[in-house]
């Protein structure tokens, strides 16, 4: 079948090659291009570029539903610096991302390495490992809310089975974020598949070379698997960090930001400010700060990556 081969070619294809000169093209290519990419470009302008600029303008106003918006300069940004809840939400979000990103990446890599062993029942394992990741986040949130229930939930029942005392999970200030981190490693399907694709791209000869040098499993992992996977690790790191910094539904459905703001994620705080307190100006200022943070982190990760990411074809 064409598909499977084509996909392998796609996967193996090097980065963009300069377009080969083929037959002379239509003279009216520009008009055709406008037809083909026009909707997407319009969508970019109208649903991305204009809103991001408008968001900044709104951040400079005192815009609530009650009053006519008035220009207040940097007042919202000054207010933010003195806002205890803003700092709290920043801390909560950073705390969550700092643990959920490495934890889920490590777990995804572990699962991918197991799948890469060509175990019997491999397809079934892959299905089961991927399954939770396709579930609607609202369902997983409701389900885990029930599993975290201190009196009747699954997790405390399991703890009781091994003789441990009940935990309060998301219902205690100290437990809320660790509980959500634990929940996050349940959804590692896409990351796992990306790692698996990466693992399958590691040439066998490299492993054989380590074996000839007398290296064991640990040496194979440290000196072949990890270095060869660094581009994949970078990709997963960037995507999952951006995702973790935008966590919302869990706090909305499960904890309402609590207890005592222990799970006040930034996006949840922005949502509350904009749509419960209807303070669009201040919410936009908060949203812009999040935007700058995400842009800065992505930029730093990509910029510093050439120090630790190994590309087979030489560093770019």
């Amino acid at each position, binding site marked *: 079948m064409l598909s499977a081969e084509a996909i392998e070619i796609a996967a193996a294809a090097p980065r963009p090659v300069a377009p080969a000169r083929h037959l002379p093209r239509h003279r009216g*290519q520009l008009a055709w291009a406008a037809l*083909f*990419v026009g909707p997407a470009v319009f969508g970019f302008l109208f649903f991305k570029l204009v809103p991001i600029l408008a968001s900044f303008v709104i951040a400079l106003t005192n815009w609530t539903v009650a009053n006519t918006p008035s220009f207040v300069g940097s007042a919202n940004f000054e207010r933010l610096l003195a806002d205890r809840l803003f700092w709290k939400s920043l801390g909560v979000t950073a705390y969550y991302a700092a643990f959920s990103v490495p934890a889920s990446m490590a777990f995804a890599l572990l699962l991918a390495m197991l799948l890469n062993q060509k175990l*019997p029942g491999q397809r*079934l394992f892959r299905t089961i490992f*991927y*399954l939770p990741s396709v*579930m609607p986040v*609202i369902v997983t949130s409701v389900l885990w809310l029930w599993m975290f229930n201190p009196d009747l939930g699954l997790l405390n029942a399991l703890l009781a089975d091994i003789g441990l005392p009940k935990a309060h999970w998301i219902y205690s200030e100290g437990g809320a974020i660790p509980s959500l981190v634990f929940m996050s490693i349940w959804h590692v399907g896409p990351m796992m598949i990306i790692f698996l694709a990466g693992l399958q791209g590691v040439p066998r000869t490299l492993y054989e070379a380590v074996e000839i040098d007398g290296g064991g499993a640990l040496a194979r992992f440290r000196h072949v698997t990890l270095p060869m996977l660094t581009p994949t690790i970078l990709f997963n790191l960037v995507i999952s960090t951006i995702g973790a910094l935008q966590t919302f539904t869990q706090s*909305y459905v499960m904890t309402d930001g609590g207890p005592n703001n222990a799970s006040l994620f930034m996006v949840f705080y922005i949502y509350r400010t904009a749509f419960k307190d209807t303070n669009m100006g201040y919410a936009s200022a908060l949203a812009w700060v999040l935007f700058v943070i995400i842009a800065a982190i992505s930029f730093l990760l990509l910029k510093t990556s050439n120090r630790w990411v190994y590309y087979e074809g030489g560093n770019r």
Partner: protein
Amino acid sequence: MSARLPLKQWPASLWLAFVLAVLFALGMILPLAWLVRSSLMELGQIFIFPPQWIPDPFAWSNYPDALTTIPFLHYLWNTLVILVPTVIGTVLTTTMAAFGFSRLEWPGRDAVFNILLATLMLPFVTTLIPTFLWWSKMGLTNTPWPLVVPHWFGADVFFIFLLRQFFRTIPRELDDAAILDGANPLQVLWHVIVPLSKPALITVAILSGLASWNDFLDPLIYLQDSSQFTLALGLSEFTGLYTSQWHLLMAAATVVVVPVLVLFFLAQRYFVESITLSGIKG
């Protein structure tokens, strides 16, 4: 291949991997078992600690009860009214855009594409507020429009990226042959590219339908009137209203998740291929 080895010849490392895989699989399936088990129990049995695993009796009536407590069919209809045009718009506009970014030559093409790609890093919440204010000024909140229209304008940049990667694997000679026969780009797309890209297009349709079914934040923002609620939103409302009715809540959650699981089992290869397709690898 080690998988073909008889059990007795398995090296210790393979045993270790197999045992670990079984343990993780059990651990990951456990929440789902808990979901189904809770959805079939009477409330009295749910309140027993330590919890029991087997419902006694099987309370099948939880399902009709849950589905009448919330206007399930109505929410299903609302969900589909958004989902169907979203999928059509997504497949149509991402295919067109991907063709324009891979098969046509025009100045600035790759730069424009890279700018679009960069918007993947844009947090949704930053563009949300002005977009919401605009839709609300247009009087179109509480309608499917704000949820559907962006997908007719290439909101799904990742799918454009995916299809563009796929189109590039199709030999240009096929286009050229069609062009020699007098085909215009639209005909090349329709007669050459689309027939060869069916798996990729199906992948996009499935992923976009799934995203629409699962979407929570957009409906939450735009649909405040409960007559417009989608299933995801209805389930969240249900959680707020009937916090201790865990058996009904789990039955409702099961109903929302079953179509997703069925789709996943039927179309599993498309989920997996979507990632391989994007060309992300070590």
